[in-house]
């Protein structure tokens, strides 16, 4: 590339990657749709067993972190390095909070003998088994993406600190941000689909 860095191009590449992520989850949502149609009553029964408060808290946590990530880009563009660093650290912290919440939530479920292939699920209603099966697969995959997102944000954080991400060259941070927002987007759908189905 002889004519300098093409930020738009990099962004297009990132978006293309995000499309593939959307469709990765899309496959699971296809399953969700089909099984929801098949077992609506069990989905609402299963939904009531999930803790709506933890779900809502996690939604808020992710939304706030999305905001701080977006704000950190603004900060970088305005050459406010300290602000940017602070905002990024806070975002990563939000990711940790999300995962800790998730850990307690899963832990409680495990405690009640609700986990893949557990006695309760296998001998219970098949609809519930499918609901929790999907729940674990989707939130598990989502959790994995939260971790990847945190890693990307951490890399960006280091680069911001090292002065490698600047107001004229911030593609890394921008892309990490896009990834983080995607994680948020998926959660925005996961939350009502699992916690709020009635």
């Amino acid at each position, binding site marked *: 590339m002889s004519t300098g860095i093409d930020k738009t*191009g990099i962004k297009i590449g990132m978006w293309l990657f995000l499309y593939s992520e959307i469709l990765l989850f899309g*496959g699971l949502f296809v399953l969700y749709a089909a099984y929801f149609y098949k077992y609506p009553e069990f989905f609402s029964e299963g939904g009531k067993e999930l803790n709506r408060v933890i779900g809502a808290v996690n939604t808020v946590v992710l939304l706030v972190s999305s905001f701080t990530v977006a704000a950190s880009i603004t900060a970088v563009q305005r050459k406010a390095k300290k602000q940017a660093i602070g905002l990024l650290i806070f975002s990563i912290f939000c990711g940790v909070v999300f995962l800790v919440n998730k850990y307690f939530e899963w832990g409680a479920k495990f405690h009640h003998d609700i986990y893949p292939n557990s006695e309760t699920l296998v001998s219970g209603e098949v*609809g519930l088994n499918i609901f929790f099966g999907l729940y674990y697969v989707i939130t598990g995959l989502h959790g994995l993406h939260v971790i990847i997102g945190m890693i990307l944000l951490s890399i960006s954080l280091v680069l911001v600190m090292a002065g490698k991400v600047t107001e004229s060259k911030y593609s890394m941070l921008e892309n990490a941000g896009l990834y983080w927002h995607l994680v948020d987007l998926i959660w925005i759908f996961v939350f009502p689909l699992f916690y709020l189905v009635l």
Partner: protein
Amino acid sequence: MIKTESFYDTPAPAGLTGIKAWLLTHDHKRLALMYMWAILFWFVIAMMFGLLLRTELMSQGRTIMGPEVYNSLFTLHGVIMIFLFVIPAIPAIFGNFFLPIQLGTDDVFFPRLNLFSWYLFMFGGVFALISLFTGEGFPDTGWTFYVPFSVEANSNVSVTVMAAFILGMSSMLTGLNFITTFHRMRDKNMGLMQIPLFTWSLYATAWVQILATPVISITLVLVVVERLFSIGLFEPDKGGDPILYQHLFWMYSHPAVYIMILPGMGVISEIIPVFSRKSIFGYKAIVWSSMGIAVAGSLVWAHHMYTSGMSDVSVFVFSLLTFLVAIPSAVKVFSWIATMHKGSIEMTPPLLLALIFIYLFSVGGLTGLVLGAVGTDIHVHDTHFVVSHFHFVMFGGTGFAFFAALHFWWPKMFGIMYEFKNAYIGAVLTAIGFLFHYVPMFILGLQGMPRRYYDYLPKYETGNFLAGFGGYLLCLGILIMFGNLFMSFKRRIPAPSDPWGATTLEWTVPSPPPVHNFVKKPQIKEFPYDFSEVGKREKNGEKSRKIL
């Protein structure tokens, strides 16, 4: 002519030497060659597996192997051919090499990502190898990995599935690279309707790769998850629905058919005009049909499932859509043939292979109509008819397009010419062997011989024997063809920059191209297939190449 240093002499990034200059390179041309050797290796392996399978079937009962080995071999033949040959062959080799040149630029947009894709490809291949020698034995589920069998099988399915996952990722990242290159690095003077058709077909393919591949990724992940945690998402006893697996699987794997064939069509769209010395007929129609195939091809996946027990409504819708998808392919075939009308046709090995492609692909496409129509599909579904049909498309189509591309671009990639006579012999023998190999399978299928059968009823023996015989002929043909190409390394007859009298940009640069592809700024033609100057050049007594 000024002598320029080819990319073989200049490492990229600069300063690398020896093997490092290859293994750490960002140069799309070097990567293309590295892909080529890896892909040829896999092709030969899978071809040998195929030959062993057909040898086993030549006579009834046990011939050379037992059913377990047979089942593993057809699984591996399928997995390797699909994921390590047919899908990557044309995009990864010729796409990587020529897409940037045809767009008038020096590399793909993300060169390092390109190298990473290559490593993923190799890594996936290694994974496939590992699955053979570890665990409970060879994977034996068929390349479709249908549940519940793939979840229950004791064999080493998880590792094979992960190999397919990694290979999918590699192909997706290549697609991502192509799209970005297409939009951001195209020469400023090149409008959308001035782009060569090969590049257009890769662009359409790349979209399918990006949008469809993740679906198979998640499906394969689910297979592994089921094997590890037995959640039961596809297990009827636990409320799952095995047919949903098939939907997810074919949501990728049908579009994947277009990932396989579209680049091949692109190759043919380059070759036919060059040797007819005449503009492609209906350039825009071909571009639109490429995009049309990419879009509509994603809507017909369930036509693999007429007998699966899905609803009749679904059968109706998907059958109807399937017939509509047939149209863009037909348009392409007509356009290629119309291109030759009133042309000035010079027979060369690439053209001969392209003509064979048109014939074999037409057979494949037309027999596809039998499979698209519901009533007839019920009879021949999962029989040898299907086996033959998709080999006509995948091998007669993509395979021959790959051979044609090799012969077409060989002089450009290596800067040397191969011998024509042996190339003709190889091509003709391959084609005859091909017909001997697969036509009996059509008949076997119509008679009702199922696929993936280790043994069969006595009435099918003649057909199977003939097919096996054809298989040997086919392999012999391929051997001659490849042998002839490799002999060119020994004879080293230098190739000029434009041996065929072609018009697209890759023929304006030296053979082999220098590291940044263009020595001077590329001249973008108003229309990529304008042959008016080529004819003039020849009239002035300029011979493009020696007659071989």
